[in-house]
């Protein structure tokens, strides 16, 4: 199977999920100050979900820790970004 859905892609990746989120999105800022919501498009793991009220919901569990959302976000303070605790998060096996 060469052509794959995003879900099928994500199933091939191993994540060791930490107890606390390493990335926190301030949905207030997304709702009030941002009309671009770049994070929704650029995230390779598709973790940013636009909400009806204009806010953003973020799921940290399947994060690649690539930093793209942080670089793409044009709103100061909307994304608080750090790496997961040592040993947690994504673990590539073959990439």
């Amino acid at each position, binding site marked *: 199977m060469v052509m*794959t859905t995003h879900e099928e892609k994500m199933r091939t990746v191993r994540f060791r999920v930490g107890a606390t989120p390493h990335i926190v999105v301030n949905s207030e800022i997304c709702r009030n100050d941002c009309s671009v919501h770049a994070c929704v498009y650029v995230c390779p793991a598709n973790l940013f979900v636009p909400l009806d009220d204009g806010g953003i919901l973020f799921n940290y569990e399947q994060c690649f820790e690539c930093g793209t959302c942080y670089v793409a976000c044009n709103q100061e303070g909307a994304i608080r970004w750090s790496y997961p605790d*040592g040993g947690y998060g994504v673990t590539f096996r073959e990439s």
Partner: protein
Amino acid sequence: MTTHPANQQFDVIVVGAGPAGSAAALLAARAGLKVLLLERGEYPGAKNASGAVFYGSAILNELIPNWWEQAPVERHICRRDIAFMSPTTAVALDFRSAGVGFATAPYNGFTVLRPKFDRWLAAQAEAAGAFVLTSAVVDDVLREKGHIVGVRVRREQGEIYGKVVIACDGVNSFLAKKAGLQREFHPHELSLGVKEVIGLDPAIIQDRFHLTDNDGIAFEYLGAITEDVHGGAFLYTNRDSLSLGVIGQVSSLVERRKRPYELLERFKAHPAVAPLVRGGKLREYSAHLIPESGWAMKPKLYTDGMLVAGDAAGFCLAAGLYLEGMNYAMQSGLAAAETAIFACQKNNFSARVLAAYQKNLKQRHVSTDFRAYRHAPSFVNGPRLQNLYPEMVARGMEQIFRVDGTPKRKILPLTYRMVRQSTIKPGQLLRDVYQVARAYLW
């Protein structure tokens, strides 16, 4: 300098066990220094993804003779293919060499799988005497009187001291930022790579790509493959799998509202690519940022008590013909280690002494290469080279080869007509020719 308990005091602390960090730790440990190599992943390589072709065989050969005989390498690259794409056609520049250094030892480049290769390289540093500690994420540097004297690991009693800190913590380099050496990045300076490793029987790979034994091929693609997003794509042969992916400039992904993994699917469906991947099975999907702007995003490379190397220093050459990072990571890591060894001899870790790093980088051809190609990244990532020219070349070839009963045109009038029909102005074309020449010829 304050003294700390012996078990918490190192000569060199290297942050990040990628090619830069492990090379630095290896060299410093061999020089007899007390080296700590910190890695935030479960094992070295767990967080690392790139193409990946490693073009630094000769560099590593200096450290570990005939390293490829013991390292987890996939195939050595003796054929490279750069293709200009339109939505339905491809024009390729095909380079093959059975010559010395390409198909024979020490070889020019190898495809590798980073979690395996990086893990092996870190083990070499460990064998040389470095203390390799995994599951250790570094949050900040420690300072005393303005000098950097260590790092803080995100664990209880996480302060650890070293005379020199070498930050090899990758493209996002929080450490260089914490040390005030790097600014925040702009979305146009970085590209996002998304990648798949697709399993395929070795016999099929050999047949399909006309390879013998452990020969390998590297395909790189420009043009319509990433639609109107600035970027490119690649496909490399491994032993029993293919590594393929799409690279897109972050600002351009944002502007075009394109999802990277959808571009990846379109790439695989392109008529020039689909037959190459047919019958394969997805083994792993991954994503990583690439510091594509090279010289333009280089941080200040040293300060009192600290050096920056690898992707953290932006040492990644993404300039059309060249897509190289691991070799520069290693070279800069080695240059940083040489600097740390020098500083230990002098017993002086101030910026004034660590400034020797610049000279060492030049000797290892890192800064000279990046300076020489400093104009290439911005040009390569420009809209015309990204989308217009590759497609023009591809369409032009289509017209040259098409036989449909209309009179054949010679190439020059054909080119003239294509330029006239496109949005490009002749003056711009000339300027671009000059830019290509400036970027690559002199």
